[in-house]
C-alpha cells in the first residue's frame, strides 16, 4: 500500500463536511480524467472548424484549414494517454478491444477512437497532403526523401485527374467526418451524462453541451495557433480569416452559454432531491472554478470582448489582439468547464448529505506535473507535424495555384 496515498486520503477525510459514505473518501477520477475530455474536445472542435471550410465553403477560413487538421491530429494522438495512465491496470487496457462489454459506454471508446483516427483524420490528411508529399519527395533527398516516399505510400501521380480525385476524397471524408467528430465528443459527454447515480452528471443535455464546448475550444485553439505561428513566421495575419474565426467563436459561445443556462435553469426548476447539495457544492467548493473562471472569465468576458471587437470600428491591430486575448480566456474557461464536470461531479456524496475534497498532488502518476506534461505533449507533436507537413500556402508547390 502506498503511504503517500493513504496520507492523502486521511487529509481528504479531514476536509469532509456533512456525511459521506465511508467508501467515498477517495476521489476516483483525477485530473487525468479532466484532461481526457479537454483534449478530445479540442480534437473534435478543430476538426469541425476545418470542415466548415471544406463542406460549407467558408472561404475566409482557408488559411486555417490544414492547420486545424494537423492540430486535431496532434491532439488525437495524446487523447488516450491520460485514460490509459489513470487505470489501475494499464497493461490490461487492451481487454477493452478483445472482450468489450457492449452495454458499457466506456468500452466503445476504443472503437470510436480508432474509427475517428484511422478512417477520418488520417485518411483526410493523407488525401489533402498527397500531392504535396509527392512534390516534397521530389525536392528532398536522403532520409527525408525516404520518409515522404513511405508516408505517401509510394504514390507519384500528380496529374490533374489524380489531384481532382484527392479533392473529391477529402470532401467525402469530411462529410463522413462531421458526424464522426460529433460522435467522438458527444460520446465523451455520454460517458458522464449516462451515470444515473450522479445527479450532477446525469443529463441528456450532457453530450450536446460537451459538443458545443468542444467546438468553442477547437475554434479558439486554432485561432491562437494561427495567430502565434503566423507571427513567428513573420508573415501577415489574414484579417478576413481572423474575423471569420472570431465570429464563429462568438456564435458558438452564445450557443454554448445558452445550453449551459438551459441545463442550469432546468435543474433549478425541477429542483430534485439533489438540488440542495448541488447548490451547496456550487456556492462553496466550485464557486471560483465555476462562477468566476468558467462563466465570468471564460464565457461572459470573451463574449463581451469579441462583441466589442467584432461590431465596433476598432482598428484591425487592436481587433486582432482582442480576438487573441478572448481566445486565451476561452481556453482557460473550457479547461475549468472540464474540471467542474469531472472533479465537481465527485465532490459531493451520493447520500446527498456532504461534500468531499480533492487535493491535487504535484508529482506522482496522477499529479499536476504529469497533467502539464500531457498538455504540452500535443504541442510538441504539432511542432513536428508542422515541420514535416508545412500547412502554409507558401510552403505548397509553386507549380500550381493555391486553393483549398
Amino acid at each position, binding site marked *: 500500500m502506498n503511504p503517500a496515498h*493513504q496520507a492523502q486520503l486521511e487529509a481528504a477525510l479531514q476536509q469532509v463536511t456533512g*456525511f*459521506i459514505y465511508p467508501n467515498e473518501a477517495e476521489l476516483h477520477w483525477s485530473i487525468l480524467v479532466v484532461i481526457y475530455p479537454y483534449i478530445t474536445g479540442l480534437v473534435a472542435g478543430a476538426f469541425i472548424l476545418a470542415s466548415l471550410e471544406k463542406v460549407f465553403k467558408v472561404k475566409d477560413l482557408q488559411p486555417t484549414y490544414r492547420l486545424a487538421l494537423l492540430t486535431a491530429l496532434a491532439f488525437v494522438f495524446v487523447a488516450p494517454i491520460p485514460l490509459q495512465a489513470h487505470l*489501475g*491496470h494499464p497493461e490490461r487496457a487492451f481487454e477493452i478491444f478483445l*472482450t468489450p462489454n457492449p452495454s458499457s459506454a466506456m468500452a466503445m471508446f476504443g472503437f470510436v477512437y480508432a474509427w475517428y483516427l484511422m478512417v477520418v483524420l488520417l485518411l483526410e490528411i493523407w488525401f489533402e497532403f498527397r500531392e504535396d508529399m509527392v512534390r516534397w519527395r521530389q525536392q528532398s533527398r536522403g532520409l527525408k526523401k525516404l520518409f515522404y516516399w513511405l508516408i505517401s505510400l509510394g504514390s507519384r501521380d500528380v496529374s490533374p485527374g489524380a489531384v481532382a480525385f484527392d479533392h473529391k476524397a477529402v470532401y467525402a471524408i469530411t462529410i463522413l467526418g462531421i458526424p464522426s467528430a460529433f460522435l467522438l465528443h458527444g460520446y465523451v459527454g455520454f460517458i458522464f451524462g449516462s451515470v444515473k*447515480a450522479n445527479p450532477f452528471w446525469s443529463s441528456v443535455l450532457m453530450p450536446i453541451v460537451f459538443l458545443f464546448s468542444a467546438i468553442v475550444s477547437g475554434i479558439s485553439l486554432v485561432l491562437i495557433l494561427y495567430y502565434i505561428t503566423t507571427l513567428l513566421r513573420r508573415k501577415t495575419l489574414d484579417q478576413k480569416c481572423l474575423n471569420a474565426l472570431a465570429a464563429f467563436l462568438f456564435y458558438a459561445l452564445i450557443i454554448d452559454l445558452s445550453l449551459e443556462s438551459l441545463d442550469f435553469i432546468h435543474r433549478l426548476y425541477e429542483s430534485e432531491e439533489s438540488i440542495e447539495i448541488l447548490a451547496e457544492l456550487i456556492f462553496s467548493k466550485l464557486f471560483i472554478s465555476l462562477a468566476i473562471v468558467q462563466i465570468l472569465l471564460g464565457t461572459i468576458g470573451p463574449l463581451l470582448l469579441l462583441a466589442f471587437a467584432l461590431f465596433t470600428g476598432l482598428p484591425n491591430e487592436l481587433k486582432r489582439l482582442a480576438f487573441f486575448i478572448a481566445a486565451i480566456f476561452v481556453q482557460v474557461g473550457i479547461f475549468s468547464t472540464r474540471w467542474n464536470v469531472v472533479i465537481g461531479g465527485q465532490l459531493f456524496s*451520493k*447520500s*446527498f448529505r456532504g461534500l468531499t475534497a480533492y487535493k491535487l498532488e504535484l508529482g506522482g502518476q496522477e499529479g499536476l506535473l504529469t497533467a502539464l506534461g500531457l498538455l504540452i505533449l500535443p504541442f510538441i507533436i504539432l511542432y513536428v507535424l508542422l515541420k514535416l507537413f508545412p500547412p502554409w500556402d507558401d510552403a505548397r508547390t509553386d507549380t500550381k495555384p493555391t486553393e483549398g
Partner: protein
Amino acid sequence: MSKTYERREFLADLVKFPCATLLLGVSGPIKALASAGNEYQASEHNYAMGVQIEKCIGCGKCVEACKIENDVPMEPYYFRTWVERYIIYTDGEVSVDSPNGGINGFPPVESDKDILRTFFVPKLCNHCENPPCVQVCPVGATFKSQDGVVLVDDDYCIGCRYCIQACPYGARFLDPRTHTAGKCTFCYHRITEGLLPACVEICPTQARIFGELDKLSTPLNRMMRQSNIQVLKAHMNTEPKVFYSDLDGEVR
C-alpha cells in the same frame, strides 16, 4: 439440503435402472458421478439479504467480521459493509454518521437538542437485480452470477473505476493493493459451501437475515411477509436485493 436430495435421487435412479448401474461397471465412476451431483449449482439459487433496522444495535461487529473474513484493508476508506447512525431531532434536523464505518460502534450523541428518534442502518452492496455497475464495466470484469450475486473478477478488472462512479450506494472501492474494484460478495466463498456470510453469522441480534429469495419457507421470506419492506433508492430502478424492514424515509 437440495444437494443431499439430488444425490439421493441419483442413487435411487441407479437402483431403479440396474442396467445402467451394470453398464457403469466398477464403483469408482459411480462415486465420481455421485459427488459431481454434489457440486454447487449457481442456477439453483437466488440470494438476497434482509436487514431488520429495529434489531440493529450499531455494535459494528459485522463490519469487523467482514474485514477479517474477506481481507478488506483495515484503513477507514475501504468497506464491503458499514453501519450508519441516523439521529433525527425534534426540529427536523437529521444528522448521520459512520465513524470508521461503525467498526468500533458509535460514540455518545453530543448534542443537547431533543431527539425524536435514532436508529442504525447496516449497508452493503445491494446485489442489484439491475446493476448499473455491471452495465458500465467496459470489460465485463463486474458481472452478475447466476445465483444473483454481483461479483468482480480480479484478474480481469482494469481498474478504470467506472463501476464505482455508477453505483448509487457507495458500495464499491478500489482495493489499494490489487488496484481492482472491491465490494461485498455475500461471502461467496462461504455461501457456495452452504455457510452464511460472516456479517450474518456474527450479528448478535440477528438483524441480518440471509437466504434464498425464491424459496418460500425461509427466514428471509418470513421476514419479508411479516414486515414493511423497503429498498434503498428505489427510484434508481436498480432493484436492490438487500431488503430493509421499517426503513425510515430519511435513509439514502
